């Protein structure tokens, strides 16, 4: 379920999955009401995911997908936007495949390849509609039977004869807007064929030009204007080797040469790379190995690129001899302009920024971006979820920091946290009382002092609720630990050490 703040600063549902709809969740519903309904779903074993929706991120993701779909069509355009209460949703893409389908072995094969590629690259399950007109394709993709639109054979309507399948679709497939759709449904016009049966003049007189226009677009009598998304310039240089080679120094040398060529091209436009991909083509293994290099700020320093690539290359096993190489700048940015200093930039702020970028890039190249994190506090009472770590490269680029909390916490927490918590054998004076003696698999201690309980009951939206009584205990030798008793079954766990 996605939610957002509306014009009155109230949280409302923007959209939800069909499974959530079965539990009564609807678009525009207050989030609290939807959450209450989903709680029942989670009690029945369903996984509930709630996320804050961002129109900017949504649109950016769709545009990234549009660029990816450029491999199937030279012209990719946004579909029209549907209104959802006070929000505007980007809801799909148009691909003009008139001249490209034969390159993929026909329409069905093209759709099959596209479904597979999108699932592999993005993990999305895309719904498709292939028809003579954009309006018909949109209607089928959105309102056709789900088993047909996710299947290459079902997604392609017969050329020149799509009307029989389109006419039975609901009136919403015409993109008339929520108000007009409601009016038509109240009048008993629920399917396209019912609207098409009315005289065009009557349609115009009663509801304006839009219904007649949409019908004409659907049947190909009126052309629909598509606004293609401009695909960014490709920053890729490649070289096919004369002979396959497994020699790493040779490969590194060729990669350095390619990087030099790419840097020259970027320099002409005062650009630097933010993300590089070095593709190693191994024809014998039938694959292209990507090596991704993330950068904190736009850079066109070939030597720096080469060092980062070598760090990754050392850890990349080659499945076969390399036959071709390519270096692609996936993301580029304008090179920062800095005033020169007599002593270089070593002492200045810019120099420190470059040094930090250099460190983060080196660590990310060698250990992987997921290992170099910038921690954030998260607004969650459950200790395991009270923070989040985002790859530093992403965090510095300002991506994915929507839910962070900046204020300093006001509760004492241990510096080491065991995740998952370690099972603990505890001896207490009374069954549900504070602990007296604790034993883990590795060590044991006698409790000299104890503070608590601090009750934490939360996390129902993640599935099973968390109900714990936390105690801070001091061992007889002065060490401090953080332990809890699970209220459901009374079992004890060691959660952390005040190391």
């Amino acid at each position, binding site marked *: 379920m996605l939610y957002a703040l509306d014009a009155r600063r109230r949280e409302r549902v923007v959209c939800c999955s069909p499974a959530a709809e079965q539990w009564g969740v609807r678009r525009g519903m207050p989030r609290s009401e939807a959450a209450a309904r989903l709680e029942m779903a989670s009690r029945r074993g369903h996984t509930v995911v709630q996320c804050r929706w961002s129109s900017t991120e949504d649109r950016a993701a769709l545009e990234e997908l549009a660029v990816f779909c450029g491999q199937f069509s030279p012209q990719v355009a946004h579909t029209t936007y549907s209104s959802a209460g006070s929000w505007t949703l980007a809801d799909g893409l148009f691909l003009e495949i008139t001249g490209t389908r034969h390159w993929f072995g026909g329409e069905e094969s093209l759709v099959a390849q596209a479904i597979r590629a999108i699932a592999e690259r993005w993990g999305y399950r895309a719904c498709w509609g292939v028809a003579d007109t954009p309006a018909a394709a949109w209607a089928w993709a959105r309102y056709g039977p789900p088993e047909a639109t996710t299947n290459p054979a079902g997604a392609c309507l017969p050329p020149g004869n799509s009307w029989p399948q389109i006419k039975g679709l609901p009136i919403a497939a015409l993109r008339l807007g929520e108000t007009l759709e409601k009016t038509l449904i109240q009048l008993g016009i629920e399917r396209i064929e019912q609207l098409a049966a009315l005289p065009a003049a009557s349609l115009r007189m009663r509801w304006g030009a839009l219904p007649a226009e949409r019908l004409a677009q659907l049947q190909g009598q009126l052309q629909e204007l598509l606004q293609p998304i401009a695909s960014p310039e490709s920053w890729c240089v490649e070289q096919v080797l004369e002979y396959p080679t497994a020699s790493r120094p040779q490969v590194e040398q060729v990669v350095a040469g390619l990087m030099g060529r790419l840097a020259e091209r970027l320099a002409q436009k005062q650009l630097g790379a933010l993300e590089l991909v070095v593709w190693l083509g191994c024809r014998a293994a039938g694959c292209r190995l990507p090596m991704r290099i993330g950068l904190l700020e736009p850079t066109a320093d070939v030597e720096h690129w080469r060092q980062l690539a070598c760090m990754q290359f050392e850890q990349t096993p080659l499945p076969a001899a390399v036959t071709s190489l390519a270096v692609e700048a996936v993301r580029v940015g304008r090179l920062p302009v800095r005033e020169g200093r*007599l*002593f270089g930039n*070593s002492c200045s702020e810019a*120099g420190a*920024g470059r*040094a*930090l970028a*250099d*460190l*983060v890039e*080196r*660590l990310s190249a*060698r*250990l992987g971006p997921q*290992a*170099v*994190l*910038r*921690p*954030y*506090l998260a607004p969650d009472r459950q*200790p395991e979820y*009270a*923070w989040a*770590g985002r790859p530093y490269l992403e965090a510095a680029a300002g991506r994915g920091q929507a839910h962070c909390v900046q204020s*300093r*916490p*006001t*509760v*004492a*927490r*241990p*510096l*080491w*946290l065991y*995740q998952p918590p370690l099972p603990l054998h505890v001896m207490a*004076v009374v069954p549900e*009382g*504070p602990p*007296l003696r604790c034993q883990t698999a590795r060590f044991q201690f*006698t*409790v*000299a*002092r*104890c*503070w*608590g*309980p601090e009750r934490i009951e939360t996390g129902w939206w993640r599935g099973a609720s968390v109900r714990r009584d936390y*105690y*801070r205990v*001091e061992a*007889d*030798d*002065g*060490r*401090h630990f953080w332990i809890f008793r699970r209220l459901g079954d009374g079992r004890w766990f060691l959660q*952390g*050490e*005040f*190391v």
Partner: protein
Amino acid sequence: MGNTAARRTVEQLRRQLQQWEQERRLVCRSGWLPGVEESGLPAERIGTGVESWDRLMPEGGFRRGTLVEFFGAGGSGVGTVALWVARCALQQVPGVLVVVERRQRFYPPAAAVWGIPLDRCIWVQVPDKRLQAWTIDQALRSPAVAAVWSWVERLEEQWGRRWQLAAESAGTLGLLLRPSTERGRRSWADMQWMVVPECTQALRGDSTGNRQPVAGETLRQVRLTLVRSRLGPAGGSCRLVLDDFRGLVAAAGQEETRHGASGLSVVAALAYPAAVRSASLVGRRTSGAVCS
């Protein structure tokens, strides 16, 4: 032609000035010429804000560009003491804190309580000992880093030497947490500290142990001993009180500290009205059963 000659002259002048600047810094650091101080440069010594602790160190603080080892067991407060030094470093010199960890136990909310600004913190999760050593080396070598904080179980000598040189070259403070069992081994660290926790019974200042628990008892107490120092005599020790609730360190029995954030007295820190009820109830029972 003229351009090339001019560029060469500028380059020569730049080198000359850089050389003079380096020599001046060396003189300043060595202290050979009294009265010659570095101006406009970050502090060379990092004070802890706890007078009795600073007094134990030959230079009255942690010198930048050195390796410091803290020995102690889990739960003893060794990590907190080192983190306090990291916090002081972040307050006094520009740069970030790099936390290098192999077991993914570091808990950022606790670091935030201890005053570590998380936007100046890089947490590096390493899969093995070899990559941990490499990461610490890279971090110590970077001039953008103020301090490196890492739990190091076994330390090979050549890595110790590399880290020491790296820290020295970039002026970074290396804070290494070590298990107590590693204390006797050869080391390239400039200072070694032993952190031993003490039962908070002593903190209440009542030798009979009959006094009832009061609010603010979550204070911890540790004894800090300077085991070894390359820069001067070792052997001194002091007692510190660690307040996990407010993220403060103070000398035991001392009411004032030097840092702005740690300007609260220990007596004031003892006043936690919210904790009175539960602490007194639970503490009374345990002290009767165990600590009598």
